[in-house]
């Protein structure tokens, strides 16, 4: 397994994928109004960043970045849990998951 690992694969390809993922996530977050999909797009962006971190980590042979990815996942899990429960509560109140309905915090 070790010898086969990613020999010949250029670093920039993974970075390219990471950037593209991030952009897709961002576009999705901007276009979609469904709160759940929004949350998914955020997960996408997080994963893009994770991917980049792992890429560099492997490149530099440093494990710290992977630990960081691990923590990001932990936080993402927590965030998804809380975010989803907020969505549930919000849906109960307004019977809608349209993010633009929730602009009451403004005032």
């Amino acid at each position, binding site marked *: 397994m070790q010898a086969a690992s990613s020999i010949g694969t250029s670093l920039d390809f993974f970075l390219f994928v990471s950037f593209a993922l991030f952009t897709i996530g*961002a576009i999705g*977050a901007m276009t979609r109004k469904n709160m759940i999909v*929004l949350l998914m797009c955020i997960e996408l962006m997080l994963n893009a960043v994770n991917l980049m971190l792992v890429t560099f980590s492997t490149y530099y042979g440093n494990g710290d970045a992977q630990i960081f990815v691990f923590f990001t996942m932990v936080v993402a899990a927590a965030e998804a849990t809380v975010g989803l429960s907020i969505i549930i509560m919000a849906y109960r109140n307004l019977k809608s998951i349209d993010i633009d309905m*929730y602009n009451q915090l*403004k005032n």
Partner: protein
Amino acid sequence: MAKDLTLLLLLALPLLGFAVNGLFGKNLPKIMVGSLATGVVFAAFLLATTLFSGLHGTQIVHLFNIIDFDQLQINASFQIDALSVWMTLIITGIGSLIHLFSMGYMSHDEGYHKFFTYLNLFIFSMLLLVLGSNYFVLFFGWEGVGMCSYLLISFHYNDAQKGLANSLAGRKAFIMNRIGDVGLLLALFMLLGQFNTLEFLQIGAAVQQNTALQGGAMFFITLSLFIAATGKSAQIPLFTWLPDAMAGPTPVSALIHAATMVTAGIYLTVRSNFLFELAPFTKDIMLYVGLATTLFAAFMALRQNDIKKVLAYSTVSQLGLMFVALGFGAYTVALFHVTTHAFFKALLFLGSGSVIHGMHEEQDIRKMGGLAKLMPVTHFTFLIGTMAISGIPFLSGFFSKDEIMAQALHHNSFAYVVLVIAVTMTAIYMFRLYFLTFHGAFRGGEALKSKVHESGLSMTLPLVLLAVLSIFGGLLNLPGLFFKGAAHWFDHYLSHSTFGLSEVHNVHLDFNTSIGLMLFASAVAIGVMIWAYLNYAKRGALAKEDTALSGWERLSAQKLYVDEIYHAAFVKPLLALSHFIGKVVDIQILRNGIYALADGILHSANLTRKWQTGFLSSYLFWMIFGLITFIAYYILKLSVWH
């Protein structure tokens, strides 16, 4: 008894009276309060006489240090010399008579103990003023008497009709005095700057050693001292408080506003004579201010109808006369007039107090008349007072005025002419007052007439004593042409142990001129007396009603409109300024400026709040936008750098 102990006791006694009456006076019987207050002042008088009889040279009694800095030391210490002892005699002597009088006069007043408390405090402050050995202690007394004066003028503050006016009069007196005090304060600063001490003797010694001090500094110092004197002694331009001060009880007017406090300005000038000698220009100013005051005040007195107001303007006029003497450098002459004036003016005020008491608080001479029979003692003593102030020969006022006239004739004939006019007017208004009050028919109505009574012994006794003094007071300083040996006793007395006065020699005119002067003055006084008798007593001329006054009479009755002018020139602008600053500058500009600033911030916050649409997608959009800008900036920076 050692002198310093005597002195301390002298000071402590009125303070004791003040403390006892102030703390327990409410619960003590009136007779005890009154006699205690009178007793301490009289005891002080006795102590003062012992000081007087044992006086040799100048002595300093040191009590304690008030301020003790490296460069500056100010002591609470007192000076015993001819001048201070003489003033002490006047204050305690006349003071005890007036205390005695007040026991009768104030007997129906509910603030009886309070009155004597204040009166004792006043005596204490006044003694501090004259006995202090430096300007600082003098200033203590100076402000202290001002405070007592305020308290006593507004004594009847809750009188139903006049309560407010009384308290306003008190306030006016205090404020005007304060203006003078500022002058004294500035003088003190300058003296400290020049000499680094406030002790009279040290300053005097410094002045003697260094005569180069003449000129600017001396001029400003003496001018400030003179401003202080105009405030306390009611000279132009700060004289308007004194007539208003008549709102106080009559004994107060007699003690504070005739005999003692108002002469503090004279005392200050005499005390600082060595400074004034170096500032001839200030002396000139003093002379002309004095002349103007004596003339205008006499004019204003001509058509006053309030018995006390006449005497008040008369006081202002007489004080002006003293300043004329000071302006000529005749310090002892001024002090001589202070003394005689204290006698006859206290007499006149107390006499008027007796009249007012007998008339049940009626002060308008248009409602009096024919009181000679109803109040014989008062009438007789009042007549003596009138004659003394008018300069009828051989009474005290005759001698003291004559001395001043002699100085004027010698130095400045213009001043002499003005003085003659003023003195003539003095005689006119005094006799007018006398005849309208005591002669003719009673004009106050029958109901009042039946109630008019002669005052009791505690009031008539001081009157009689003061009358005696008014008659014989002139003997203190006889002119040289009478008894050679006893002549000018007062001058000698003062100059032998008062700093600075030994160098000052009064002019003594030759025999013929003196006689001529005296004859002329006598003729004027007697002439006026006869004219007034014919006009008021025989012909029965009465004080006119306000509407019937001719032009000059109205000017006189309205006091030359000085109060109105001051009101328009100072009070109104100050109030307007206060209103302007308070309402416009402070509220409109400053505070609303702050509010406007806050509003501006709030407003801009509202503007930027619009950006916060609450739509998540727009936030995201802006976030992406920011991200792009951020990265693009770094790319550009890097590419440019490469």
